[in-house]
C-alpha cells in the first residue's frame, strides 16, 4: 500500500473533485524506469533491506520524479518477502551477554580492563560461535538486515505501471470518509464485504429511469 507522501503529490484538486495523476502505461520514460527497477530488484535477491534502500537512493539520484520512483519501488517491495537470516543463537541472547560488559573500548581502561576485542572473543567462546560472526549476528533481528528472498510475482514493466496506478486509486479511496456506490449486479459480494468490515451503510433503491 502506498503511503500518503507517495500518493498526495499525484493528486490534483479541481473544485470539489479530485483527480489522480495516473501514469501512461505506454510512455517510454515510465516503461524504462519500471524496467530498471524490476531488474535492480531481481539483482538484489539475497541482499539486505538496507542495501536495497541504498541502491534505490542511488538510482533516484537527482531525479525530480522521485515520488513515482519510490512509489513503483514500494509496489515491488510490498509484494516481496524479506526474511531474517537464521542464526544459531538468537541475537537478543548475544546482546544480553555482550552488553553486560559494556561500555567497552578498543584499549583497556582502568574500570574496564577487557578490550572490545577480548569481550567478543570471550562471549563467542561461551556461546560457541565463531567470533568473526558476532558482529553480523548482533542485530540480525533488525528488519534492515533482513534479506530479500522472494521478489514476489513476476512483473512486466507495463504490469508494474498498471499496478502502481491501481495503488494510487486505492490510496485515495482509503481516505474517503464515505463512498457512494451504485449497484446494478453482484450486490451479494458487496453485502458480504460490508458485513465483514462492519461498515456503516445506508441503502436506497435507485429510482427507475423513465419509460
Amino acid at each position: 500500500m502506498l503511503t500518503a507522501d507517495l500518493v498526495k503529490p499525484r493528486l490534483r484538486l479541481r473544485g470539489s473533485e479530485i483527480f489522480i495523476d495516473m501514469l501512461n502505461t505506454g510512455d517510454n520514460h515510465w516503461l524504462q524506469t519500471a524496467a530498471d527497477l524490476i531488474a535492480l530488484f531481481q539483482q538484489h535477491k539475497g541482499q539486505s533491506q538496507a542495501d536495497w534502500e541504498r541502491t534505490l537512493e542511488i538510482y533516484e539520484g537527482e531525479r525530480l520524479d522521485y515520488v513515482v520512483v519510490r512509489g513503483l519501488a514500494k509496489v515491488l517491495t510490498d509484494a516481496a518477502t524479506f526474511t531474517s537470516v537464521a542464526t544459531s543463537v538468537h541475537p537478543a541472547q548475544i546482546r544480553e551477554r555482550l552488553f553486560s560488559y559494556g561500555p567497552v573500548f578498543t584499549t583497556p581502561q582502568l574500570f574496564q580492563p577487557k578490550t572490545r576485542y577480548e569481550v567478543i572473543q570471550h562471549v563467542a567462546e561461551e556461546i560457541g560461535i565463531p567470533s568473526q560472526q558476532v558482529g553480523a549476528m548482533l542485530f540480525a533481528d533488525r528488519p534492515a538486515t533482513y534479506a530479500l528472498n522472494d521478489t514476489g510475482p513476476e512483473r512486466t514493466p507495463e504490469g508494474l505501471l498498471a499496478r502502481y496506478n491501481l495503488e494510487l486509486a486505492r490510496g485515495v479511496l482509503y481516505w474517503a470518509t464515505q463512498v457512494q456506490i451504485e449497484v446494478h449486479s453482484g450486490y451479494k459480494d458487496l453485502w458480504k464485504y460490508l458485513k465483514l468490515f462492519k461498515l456503516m451503510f445506508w441503502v436506497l433503491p435507485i429510482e427507475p429511469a423513465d419509460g
Partner: protein
Amino acid sequence: MKTTAFFQGGTLVLQGIDEHERQPAPFRFIKGKWRCEGYHYGSLVPYLRERAIRDAVARWQSLNLTLHENREPHDYQVEALTSWENAGRRGSIILPTGAGKTFVAIQAIQHVKRSTVIVAPTIDLLHQWYARLVNAFAIDVGVYYGGEKRVLPLTVTTYHSAGDLMAEYGSTFKLIIFDEVHHLPAPTWGEMALMAPAPLRMGLTATYPEEEEQSNGRWRIDELIGPVIYTKRIEDLIGQQLARYRTQRLRVDLSPEERQSYDADYAIYIDFVRSRQLQRHHGARWIMELMRLSAVDAQARQAFLARQRLLRLLACAQGKFNALDALLCEYATEQILVFTEQNSMAYEIAYRHLVPVITHETGAAERKHILDGFQAGRYRVIVTSRVLNEGVDVPEAKVAIVLGGTSGAREYIQRLGRILRKVENREAVLFEVIARKTLEEGRSQRRHRKREDPC
C-alpha cells in the same frame, strides 16, 4: 411524548423531537434525529434542564476513594489543582517533565470522586499510569488498549484505542485526563476527545503546542479541554523537585574530509535557500516549501539532497564518536543515557561500545529488560534515538549525552527532563556535543535562548 437526550457512539442524540422543532447549535438534524458530538454535553446541560429534556447521557458512578499515597503534594502541585478547580475543573496544566504531573492527576481524581478515564500516548505510559493508580487508590484499575480490554470506573487507555473506548463507554466517565496533551491536535488522536461527553477535563504536558500547532483545522485543544490554567517552568522548579543540573556544550571539529564535503554541500543548500528567500517568504514552513519545490525544480532538488547529506554527515561525525568515548571514560562510575539523532548512529554506538540500544524497533520485552537492567545497575549505559523522549522514568541517570543539535526545542526539554527527576541532591549534567562551525551551533543557541525567554 417525553423527550430524552442519550449517548450513542460518541454523539448526543435527542429522542422525541422532530425536525420542525429547531434545536440550537451544535445540534444538527441527521438521519431522522437531532445530534451533535459528545463533547458539547457539559455546555448543554443547562439547556437540557431548561427544556425539561430527560438527561440519559450521564452513566458515571460515584467512587469511594481513599488515597493511600502518603507523600505530601508540593506547593505548586496544590496551586495547579486549585487553578483547575477554580476554572470549573477544565483546562491544561503545564509542568516540566519530572515535576509530578501524575500526582496532580491523582489528587484531581481524589477530589472529583467520579469515574475517570486517563488517556496516555504510549503503552509504556499506560502501564506506568496503571501502576501508579493501583498504588494510589488500592482499587482495581481497568486498561483498554490493543492487548487488553477491561473497562472499570477508573480506566487507563491510549490515544490510539480511546476512540473505540469512547464509542462504547464514553458516557461512563465524568472526568478525562489527557496525558501529554500536546498530542491532541493529531487528526485521529483527537477524535475521542470530540466523542466523549465527560464535562470535566484535564490536560497535562511539559510542552504545550505553539499557537499554530494547537489546532488542526477541525478542533483546538482549548476548545476540547479548556484553556491553559497553570504553568510552571523548569527554571522555577530546579532544586525544589528537580535535581540541579548544568548543561555543558562540547564543540568538536569536523575532520578535514568531513569539513570539505560539509562546506560543499552547505554552499549548494544555502545558496538556493537564500536566492529564493525561502525563509522570508514562508516563515517556519520554509522547509515544507523546499520539499515541495524539490519535486519540480532541479536546483531545489539538489539543495534538498545537499541538506540531507550534510545532516547525515553531522549526525555521525567522527569527532562525536571521539567525544563520546572520552565522556564514557570520564564518567566511569555514572549511569549514562546517550541520545542520538538517527537510528543508525544509535546502533553504531551499541556496536562499538557493546551497550544496550533502544529505538522504535526494540520490542517491548527487550525494552523492559534493558530499562530494568539499567535500574538494577546491570547496564551502565543506554543509547537511544528518540524513544525515551516522553515521560518514561529513568531516574538513575545523572549524566546525559546528546549527540547532535538538530532536534526541536520540544524534544530538548523532554530529554532534559529525563535525567532531572530528583533522587538525591546531586547535580545532573547534560552534555551537548555539537560540531563546530556548522548549522548545529546556530540551532543549539536558538534552543538556549528559548529556555531563557520569560513566558
